[in-house]
């Protein structure tokens, strides 16, 4: 009985070792993902970009600003002259929050009055907003403790305001994430196995005996899969908006456009994988293998701005990055088509690159 077990085990090990591509992927995946994760998230936490609006004339406000700047939590990307200008910068996505220090702040502190600072948070990015809010509250506590030694007791209230708010429900902020998975991983892995399946079933051998070109095979699959998956995507989208009541601030047609562009990009990337894979399993693994960094570095979990610089550069070429940016801006911030043209062009451009590469790399041979 043990003899059979050992024999079977040895057979399976041999089979594993004799498919080096698959094995490489399986063995490489865990360390590669860990390395990616560490390089993206493991370094010292990056600073959240914020705007500071200092309406105060005195010196004490600058002590507070210095404390914020050196805290390691914030990166002050701009000083705005007015509250309106600060809020506008947040609206335009230049920073996740604006900290507003009111007129007469220094005076109030010195006189031991109570005063306030206002944090204007971008509710479209609920997670970051929460982070900024908590850090601001803590920093103000620290400031009160150290400053009271010099100026005596006073009190600063931290007031919370939001743009694109008041509050974003989880279901709203997760819509882009869920759609990202549905429109990226699913179509990519679906089409990734298509050509290798033809190779495995030998239909490829007959197909390439007819006078067909590589571009006809690639585009035929691309268009067919696009038609089928777009139909499905519109249904999913309709379900989310009309049945689940997901909040949509911008025009739904623009959201659908962005979704279609991601879908096409995913399909073309899947075809590229398919063109270079030898069998279905390999293609499927490659699709998942590609999806992992996409998930880690595209703003899926954490805004790309908070990653380390090298991973940030990598994140910015991922199709999912362009999609998430464009989609969130339209859905939660109510932006229109003009505002997301760069993201749309990036997706389109990447689609064309992937298709061209797939056509170039598809071999009409059976080696």
């Amino acid at each position: 009985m043990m003899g059979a077990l050992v024999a079977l085990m040895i057979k399976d090990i041999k089979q594993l070792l004799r498919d080096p591509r698959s094995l490489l992927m399986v063995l490489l995946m865990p360390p590669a993902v860990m390395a990616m994760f560490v390089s993206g998230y493991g370094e010292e936490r990056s600073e959240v970009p914020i705007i500071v609006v200092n309406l105060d004339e005195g010196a004490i406000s600058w002590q507070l600003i210095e404390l914020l700047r050196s805290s390691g939590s914030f990166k002050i990307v701009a000083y705005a002259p007015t509250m309106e200008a600060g809020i506008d910068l947040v609206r335009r996505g230049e920073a996740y929050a604006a900290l507003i220090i009111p007129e007469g702040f220094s005076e109030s502190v010195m006189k031991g009055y109570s005063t306030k600072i206002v944090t204007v948070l971008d509710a479209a990015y609920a997670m970051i907003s929460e982070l900024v809010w908590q850090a601001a509250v803590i920093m103000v506590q620290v400031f009160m403790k150290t400053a009271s030694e010099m100026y005596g007791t006073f009190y600063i209230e931290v007031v919370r305001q939001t743009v694109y708010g008041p509050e974003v429900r989880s279901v709203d902020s997760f819509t882009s994430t869920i759609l990202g998975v549905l429109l990226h991983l699913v179509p990519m892995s679906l089409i990734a196995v298509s050509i290798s399946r033809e190779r495995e079933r030998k239909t490829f051998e007959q197909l390439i005996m007819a006078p067909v070109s590589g571009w006809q095979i690639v585009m035929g699959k691309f268009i067919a899969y696009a038609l089928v998956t777009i139909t499905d995507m519109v249904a999913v989208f309709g379900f989310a908006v009309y049945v689940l009541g997901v909040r949509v601030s911008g025009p739904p047609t623009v959201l659908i456009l962005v979704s279609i562009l991601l879908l096409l990009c995913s399909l073309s990337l899947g075809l590229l994988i398919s063109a270079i894979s030898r069998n279905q399993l390999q293609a499927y693994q490659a699709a998942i293998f590609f999806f992992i960094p996409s998930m880690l570095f595209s703003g899926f979990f954490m805004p790309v701005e908070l990653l380390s610089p090298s991973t940030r550069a990598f994140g910015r070429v991922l199709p999912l990055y362009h999609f998430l940016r464009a989609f969130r801006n339209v859905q939660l911030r109510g932006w229109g088509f003009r505002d997301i043209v760069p993201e749309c062009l990036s997706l389109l451009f990447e689609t064309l690159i992937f298709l061209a590469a797939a056509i170039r790399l598809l071999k009409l041979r059976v080696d």
Partner: protein
Amino acid sequence: MLAIEAVNLVKVFGSFKAVDGVTLKVEEGVIFGLLGPNGAGKSTTIRMILGLLKPTSGSIKVFGIDVEDDRSSVLKITGYMPQHFSLYEDLTVEENMRLYASLYGLNGRETEERILELLDEFMLKEFKGRLAGKLSGGMKQRLSLAVALLHRPRLLIVDEPTAGVDPPLRRYFWEKFRELKKRGVTILVTTHYMDEAENCDRIALMSKGKVAAEGSPLEIKRLAYGGDIIEMVVAGNPREVLKETAAKVLDFEENGSYSRVRLLVPDASEYLIPLTRELEAYNVKVVRAYPVSLSLEEAFIRLTTGDGVSS
């Protein structure tokens, strides 16, 4: 004109030489058989001819067109029936045919006509709406051949059409091939059934990646044995007399007052009667004389084990 001219083909997979310097010249309008056991390099050779595999070295022309340079022109005049059923199992018989008609660039009317014709010719009419995956093995083979013929190719390349096929269908296929030959189609067929190869006009015997012999089935056999074999039953024991003739004695068996002899001659049909007369001139009574039919299989074994080649 040469339908296929393959010169010095070599295909190396890693350290394994699957095809080792094969030269094939197939005249237009013949049935050419590529014979040999599994692993002899037959499929690799035809895949190179079809441009499915890139040869390590050597050149291939189909009707004068270089396969490497202008594969699509070659494909337009070539039909291919692979060893394993390679059409779409999740499409119906008719859908598969329509797909390939489009790929071969047939127009609407041609498509309709050709499909009707082929459904009829290959007895698939009543199954045209059936998914190809639900067809029996024989029907699949017929569909596969029908699709290979959609665009009326001048050259038909068939890889092991009769492997795992029952005898009536095997016979059907060979009748089809002869019919196609009459219509002017050149056929290159691989098989490891030696008995079938008798149907070919010319054959090339492949062994270990090389062509061991080439010629008509008759020529191959003569090559293997050094000529034809005649068997005679004669009176008495004319052993000494036989030495005077042009025939070589292969076997001599005395049985009472008669002897049975096996003689090797260059050509049985030419030598049978003169030899009989010659023996009778020596007063040897010939009771029976007939040519012995040899099997290609034996010839193949003799040729590849090196028995006959030297003689």
